[in-house]
């Protein structure tokens, strides 16, 4: 990939301006979108909101037990892509999704796929913490109950405690499990939402800007948690914070105007991106 014929400022052509550069149709994805051990695979994905195309020909694997970060400017399609992975877009009437999606090789958009079961296997954590207006205990117990994962109170207690522990929240709330989840701090609420997602034993956790409403300390705790969770789960995270993507992920995918421009090892993307649009975005050159 390297070439000696690299010249600097003196001879470089004008930089691509990512705010003006609207014709990305010709770009192929640079880097390594496919992995040897995919947990989820997406191929030839196109998403439309009514007439407007939000994602164009994206193919990407999410590897088992990896944290993959999706970055890009607002409107680039990263959140839309994330939401296709557990069919969250199904609830938007004007949204049409095309392409092939598999989880462990099985088609998740097949006619026989139960979306409730799919979302139990592919959980989601949102930008704004959204605990149910119920007790801390009930927030975590809700999912296991509707999926029939506990046969008695003792089993349910165990699931709740285990989930809260994995979300690094148990010690802070163990004496107030009957108090409303909405009474917790923002960072605690977000960890409660992660505990709620974990409680149904998902295989993949999708996180859509999970820290953007949190302060730096709460953010650091979530990031620490992501690091621990990747032992047992596969995580795809959308973030506006490039530093966060650099800190938590093993692979980074850069989206731009609905195209997947580049994907590669995070340390490579942040030190030596291959595509000029990626370079411009992560160095803050917006034209």
């Amino acid at each position, binding site marked *: 990939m390297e070439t000696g014929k*690299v010249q*600097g400022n003196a001879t*470089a052509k004008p930089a691509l301006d990512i705010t003006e550069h609207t014709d990305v149709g010709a770009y192929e994805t640079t880097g390594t979108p496919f992995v040897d051990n995919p947990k989820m695979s997406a191929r030839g994905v196109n998403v439309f909101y009514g007439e407007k195309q939000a994602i164009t020909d994206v193919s990407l694997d999410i590897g088992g037990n990896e944290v993959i970060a999706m970055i890009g400017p607002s409107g680039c399609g990263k959140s839309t892509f994330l939401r296709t992975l557990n069919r969250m877009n199904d609830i938007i009437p004007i949204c049409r999704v095309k392409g092939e999606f598999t989880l462990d090789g099985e088609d998740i958009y097949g006619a026989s796929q139960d979306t409730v079961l799919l979302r139990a296997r592919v959980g989601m954590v949102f930008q704004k913490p959204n605990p149910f207006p119920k007790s801390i205990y009930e927030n975590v117990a809700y999912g296991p109950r509707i999926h029939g994962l506990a046969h008695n109170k003792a089993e349910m207690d165990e699931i709740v405690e285990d989930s809260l522990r994995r979300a690094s929240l148990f010690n802070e709330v163990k004496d107030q499990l009957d108090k409303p989840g909405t009474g917790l701090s923002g960072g605690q609420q977000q960890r409660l939402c992660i505990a709620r997602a974990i409680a149904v034993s998902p295989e993949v956790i999708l996180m859509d800007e999970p820290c953007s409403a949190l302060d730096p300390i709460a953010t650091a705790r979530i990031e620490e948690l992501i690091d621990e969770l990747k032992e047992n789960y596969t995580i795809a995270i959308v973030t506006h914070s490039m530093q966060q993507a650099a800190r938590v992920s093993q692979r980074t995918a850069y989206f731009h105007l609905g195209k997947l421009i580049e994907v590669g090892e995070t340390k490579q993307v942040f030190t*030596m*991106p291959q595509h000029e649009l990626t*370079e*411009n975005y992560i160095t803050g*050159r917006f*034209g």
Partner: protein
Amino acid sequence: MDKSLPSGQHTSQRYNAELEQLRSSVLSMGGLVERQCAEALEALVKGDEELARSVSGSDDAVNRYELEISAQCIDILARRQPAARDLRMVVSIIRMVANLERIGDEAAKVARMAAKLADDYHEQSYHSEPLHLGKGAQALLHNALDAFARLDVDASIDVIARDEDIDREFKSLTRILVSHMTENPERVKNMLRVNSCARAFERIGDHATNLCEEVIYLVAGSDVRHLDIEEIRERFRS
């Protein structure tokens, strides 16, 4: 794929200005060090004691540059969290200024020797033995700084290749000086001083090579330290 570095501006104008300031500080420091080398060589071959003393006196200015540029780099790392090309630039500059400072030290060493040798100066003397070697090292330094200014990988590889000539020339110069010593045993002490000057120029060539390795890292993201010239050429063969 097009690999030229983007020349676009950051959204933050102040950030642009900081990086530009950093780059121009390195070039100023480089210019000062280059002048030191030239003057140290001139003081040596002309037996100019006054010039020699002025060169060894300018070492402080080089040290100040080193401290100032390092502080600028740390400031940018702390406040801007640079990525990609900007990160590579800051990291390579941190390593470059250390090399430039050592080149300044070598020039000051030559100047100190030149001041001591000035007493024994006469036309056609052994003083000018390192002239060609010194000019060669100076040219490498000049080309290395030029490669940095133009972010030119090909020119950097060229400097690294030419450093081998400097090394060879230093070895043969040492042999010549040893034969001078045999013929003029009373001048052994001064011959050793001349040899130290030659050694200093050889080291300056090595440091110029290091600068070019940093330019290659900055431009192409490829760490070529500890590779020999053939391995470097192989890596960049398109």
